[in-house]
Each structure stands twice: as C-alpha cells, then as structure tokens.
C-alpha cells in the first residue's frame, strides 16, 4: 500500500462521512446563509451551499452522488428564495457532477487545487445562474465582472478554510 503513488492512492482511497455530518452540514450551511445574512447583509456574497456541494462532490468522487447532492441542496436553497424551484438545483447539479468527475482525476487534497477548483466553479455557477435567470426566466439580472470576481475570490478563500475544517470530520477507509 505504501508503494502506491499518489494517483493510485486517490483511486483506492474512499472518503466517507458519518451520516449525521452528511445531513447536518448542508442544513447548517443553508441556515447560516439565511441567518447570518439577516444581520450581516454583505454575507450574502458567500454561497455556503455551493461550497458544501463542491466539497462533498470532490470528496466522495462519485458523480451520481455529487449530482444528487447538488440537486437537493440547490432545490432547498431555491425554496428559501422567491424564484422557481430548480434554478439553483440545476446549477448545483452540474457543479456537483463536474466536481465529482474532476475529483477522480486530480488531487483534491491540495489546497491550491481546491482553490482553483472553487474559483472556477463559482464562476461557472454564476454564469449558469445568469443564463437560467436571464434567458430561461427572462428576469432582470445584471452581470458584473468585478462583482463576480470579488465574489469568486471571497468564496474561494472561505472555501479553502471550510474544506480544511470539514476534512476533520471525514473517515478514511482503505
């Protein structure tokens, strides 16, 4: 086992989490996103459910799980908004699928890699959301590169910290 390289270890390493963590973390992300934004309005620039989706997707390395996880978290997030159910669900389903697919191929234990992935996924999520809202629903949505860049950077920084915290909760099985 010790002779295996990093790539081989990634293939054989299965990261699992206690069920309570797998349920509570998304709920806590939704609750914090909703509650903290009430007292700190600028907090809504964060997207904790997206970060949680990315983390579980790249950790579980299962595209189906990542897709379903992203769909459930996204629909739950939609339920808290005034928009139709499925907008965030579609976005996060795609993000979950891509994150899980990439997690199989690249080293997701590295913080730099996580940061780059998170940065790219945040941009992708925003672009898909803009596409759905602006083109599918024909609702007003203003795209600002500056705002989206700031948003992506902030989410990336918070994501790297959050991922490190969540790593403590996972179980490693060989």
């Amino acid at each position, binding site marked *: 086992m010790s002779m295996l390289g990093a790539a081989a270890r990634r293939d054989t390493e299965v990261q699992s989490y206690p069920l309570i963590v797998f349920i509570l973390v998304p*709920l*806590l992300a*939704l*609750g914090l*996103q*909703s*509650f*903290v*934004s*009430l*007292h700190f*309005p600028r*907090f*809504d*620039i964060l*997207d*904790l459910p997206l970060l949680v989706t990315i983390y579980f997707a790249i950790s579980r390395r299962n*595209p*189906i799980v990542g*897709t*379903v996880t992203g*769909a459930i978290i996204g*629909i*739950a*997030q*939609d*339920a*808290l*908004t*005034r*928009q*139709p*159910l*499925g*907008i*965030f*669900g*579609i976005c996060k*389903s*795609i993000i979950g*699928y891509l994150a899980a*697919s990439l997690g199989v191929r690249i080293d997701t234990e590295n913080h730099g890699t996580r940061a780059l992935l998170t940065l790219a996924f945040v941009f992708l999520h925003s672009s898909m*959301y803009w596409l*759905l*809202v602006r083109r*599918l*629903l024909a*609702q*007003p*949505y*203003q795209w600002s590169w500056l705002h989206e860049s700031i948003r992506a950077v902030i989410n990336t920084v918070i994501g790297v910290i959050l991922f490190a915290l969540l790593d403590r909760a996972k179980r490693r099985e060989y």
Partner: protein
Amino acid sequence: MESFFSRYKNALVLIVVLLAQVIGVAIQVRRPLPKEHAQPDAGGVRLIRYWAISLVSPPERLVHWLGTSILGVWDNYIDLMHVRQQNKDLQGELRRLRIEQGGIAEDARQGQRLQQLLAFKEKYVYKTLPAQIIGTSGVEQSRILSIDKGAKDGIAVDMPVITPSGIVGRIREVFPHTSQVLEITDPTSGAGVILSTTRIRGILRGNALGQPQVISVMPDDRIKAGEPVVTSGGDQIFPRGLAVGVVDRVVVDSERDPLVDVLIRPAANLAQLEEVLVITNMGDQVTPKQKLDMIQSEAASDAEQLKASEVLAERLPSRIDPDAPKTDDANSDDSADAEGEGIARPMRPPSALHPDRFTPNITPAAASLTPGARLAPQSEGVLTTAAKPHAATPSNSNGGTTPTVAAAPKKTGPDLVPDDGSRPPAAMTARPAVTGVSTSPSHPSTTAAGGTPSVTRPATNGGGNAAETAVHAAKPATAAEAGSTPSATRSVTNNAAGATGTGERMAIPRPSSDNGYSPAASVNSAAPKTRVIVDGPLPSAAKKAATPATATTTPTTTPGQHTPATTTPGQHAPAPTAQHPATAPAPAQHKGPELVPDDGSRPPPTMVPKPVKPPQQTPPPQQQPQGNR
C-alpha cells in the same frame, strides 16, 4: 444496452436530474392563473418550499430565541439604569401626544367625511401584527425575508409589511408558522409610489444591486435628490401615504433610453431589520377602540385648552368684568360665555349702534319673497335690482351666516362705482357686484369679501380726479329717473374738490341703455362731488314691474331713506336710516343715497363714531311720479 447504461450512467443521471428540474421550472413559470385561482406556488412546489422552510426555520428560530433571550436578560435585568426617568419622560410625552392627537383626530374625521362625500374610499392602517425577522433567503439575487408569523397568526398573501420608518415589502408566501416577505428591493417586487414634491407617479422595483428604483419615469429636471417618496395606494396593497424613502439619484434607463430610473434610498433600514409590522386590516371605518381613544384624547385636549384659556383670561387685560351688565348682544357667543366666567371672549366684530331696518320684524320674511324676482329687468347687460331693495336683503338678526344676497345681479340699492379710473365706461353696463373700491379712513368703502354682492358701495377716492368727475357729471341724467328707478344706482363719493376728503354729492342718473331716455335738468354739475349713476330698465319692462318698484321707492331718491347697506353675514352695518337715526345723521338737505360702510372698519360700539361731514352740495331728489316711465 446494459453496457451503455453502465458506461454512461453518471451522465445519464445528470441528464435525468437536469431534465426533471427544467420541466419543474417550466411548470412553475407557466402562464399565471386567473386572479381568483392564482397562488404563488402550485401545490407540489409549495410542499417542497414548506419542507425546506420547516427544515431551516427551526434552527433559525432556535438561534433567534437564544439571541433574544440573552439580550432580554441583559435588557430586562441588568441594563435598567435610568428606566424610571425614561418612564417619566415618556409619560409626559404621551400626554402631549394625546393632546395633539385630539386635534389631529378631528381633522382626520373631517377628512373622512369629506372623502365619503366624494365617494372616495381611503384605506387606513387599522390593525398591524408585529413580527420578528428570523431569516433571509441568503441569496443576493433574491430579497426575501422570513418572519415568525404565519397563517395561524392571521397572515395572508399580499399583506403589506412596514416599519415605523417606511415600507418593507409584502407577504409572498404564507406557511402555518412562518411567512416569506418579498422586499421592495427585489427585482420582481412592485409598489405604486409617488414623488411627494413633483407628484410624479411610478412603480417601485428593486434593481439587480438591491436598491429600489422608480422605473421608467419621464425625464424631469424637477426630480432632485432628497425628495421624499411615498406610496400612492394604486397597487391596492400598500395604503397611501406610507413613507418609502427619498430620491437618491436619477439614472438613465439603459433599456428604455428616453426614460430614466429614479433610485430611491429606502426609509426603512432594510439591511438591519429585526421587527416589522404586518398590516392585517385596512378599512375605511374607525374601530370602536379607536373611537374611544379619540374621544379620550379629545377630552384631554379640551381640558388642556380650558386650562390654557383660564390662564390666558387671568393675564389678559380684556378679562370680563363680572359686574358689568350683561348686554343683549346678538353676536355674543352664549356657549363660550356659558362655559365659564372669566374666560376671555373670542374677538367678535363690534355690534351695531342701533338696530337698522334689517333687524327682524322690519324686514319681511324671506318666505314671503319671490326668489329671483326682478321688477326692474335688465336691459343690455345692465344690472337690475329687485323691486324691494330691503326686502331682498335677509335679516341678520342673530348674527348668523345666512347669505345676504343670493345672487350677484340682485341689487337692492344704488351701487357705487369707483371713480379711480377703474370704473368701466358707461357703455359697459354689466358690472360685477364687487368692484375694487378704494378706501379712506373717513369714508370706508364697502368691499364685500368673498364676492358677496354689495348693494351700496361708497367709494371714496382720496385723490379724486376732478376732471373725470366733471365729465361724468356732464352726462345727461335726471334725478327723476334716479328716483323712479330701483335699479342699479351707482353713487360715487369723490373727493373731486381736492384732497380734503369731504366730497359733495350729486346724482347723475345715467341711462342704462340707448332707449331714448332724456336727460333731466336737475343735475347740479357745478361742483360735483358725488355721483349717482342710475341704470334704468326698459320702459316696457318698467311698466310691467312698475307698481312694486315704485311703491317702495328706491332708497337712492326717497328723502330720508337711505341706501340699504350691504349686509354680509355676521355684520351689522350701522346704516343710518331714517327710522333709526344714526350717530352721524344725514343733513336735512341730503336727499341722495347715504353711503353706509358695511365692512369691519366701523368703530366699535364703545367708540364714539366720527361724525360724518354732511355733503355740501347734494342734489335734491327728483321725485317724479312713477308713472312717468
């Protein structure tokens, strides 16, 4: 086939999940149902939302409860310094506000009555339900608040949500114990607003950055930053007049180029909301409790005003002497006097020195008169008068507000024409009843306020134009016509002799029309100081109405009789009539119309009236048989 599914199962799962969600979105955003069947969400979607809310709300409630509990312990048990003083201050402020409310309530009721008269239904905020904000959507693209009150608390969809500072939004979704509030900063929200200064109406909607704006407004330079914006009530959700915010700036609408968007700075601090009020009842009736409150506040207000008036009465020198004999003043405010002695009386116009012929039992009852009766018809725009000049004037015995003359063309006596150049030429016979008459202290002219038709208007021009007077005096007229004509006789007191202020009078009957009236010879045009211009009726019309008109004879020509003064409501014109000699009696040779001031410039009863200098050259009345015409 099996290998295909096993090979592409991940992608197939993704496609299925995405397809299902797209179909779900398409179902949700389909064409809305009619109003009576419309709901924000369908049943399935609503169920999913309810599940999500139910999952998220309990932790939020728990955290919120913990926070409020900790703060409550601090506020209720630790931080209680200065509470007693604050309570005292607040009670004082409450008393003051109740007094103010008494006055405002009367205005509000008056406004409601007027609106009922106009069949205008105004919505007032009558019942609100306080609610705590327990969460938000957490997404910057969706401005949604969650409150801890739901359907079981009486919340319904589209109820407005406000704060004391301004509006917040409206209820979008209602669950049993929680509700969603759509803020005014959301791009999908909408509220009818009006700019309070420029009165520009528009629709308030949030932009992508979360700032409310009035969209699609025509460019207007009058829109300035800081202008208040209030709700217009046109959206049938928000009551009218609630504060929305102030104008921040005006930006060009990129999608509708000529139009602009007015960015609004919200009055309510939407970023730091903790408690809101949900308006659960709006109506157009006052609840019994509010009626009781208004009555109590009015009683308190009256008591305070009574105290203030008592204090004022003690300090004012015009305190009523209790030993003074009580006078039978028709204008006395019995109610005010009866409320308490020593209270300063309200200021009233001075009463007449003596009763005139407009007092009761002298003037015929109005019921006996024929409304609009004209015995001297009008010819070619000439204002005609009623047959009985004094009869057309209602009594003013009780100082009431009965209109003196119902219609402006009704002239009961000679009308005075200002001789300051503003008088229209003789060809312009139709003249308004109220004319600009200059006033001098010695001869106060009568100017009927509010368009009250003045019957006799002694116009005295201090700087009279002698030349003009002479020209008018040269007009052919007969005093006989003046004496037989009850129509608009215009007398002008003109200080033609100079700036002495005493004018001589002369009668200048003026033919009212080109009907061949022959001028009379009894016109003293040597030194005219007073003109009397008579607009007579047509001969045919005069014949028809000859009897009543001549029986009463106009006061302009009857010796000893005086022109009935204009009696505006509440005024007692000290008309020096023959029956009631005035303190300034007319001289024996004065046969013409007596000028009677009827405005408020006459001296009060306690003052000795200034004797009026009798006219020196008043033309003798030319009494002719009425049948001459």
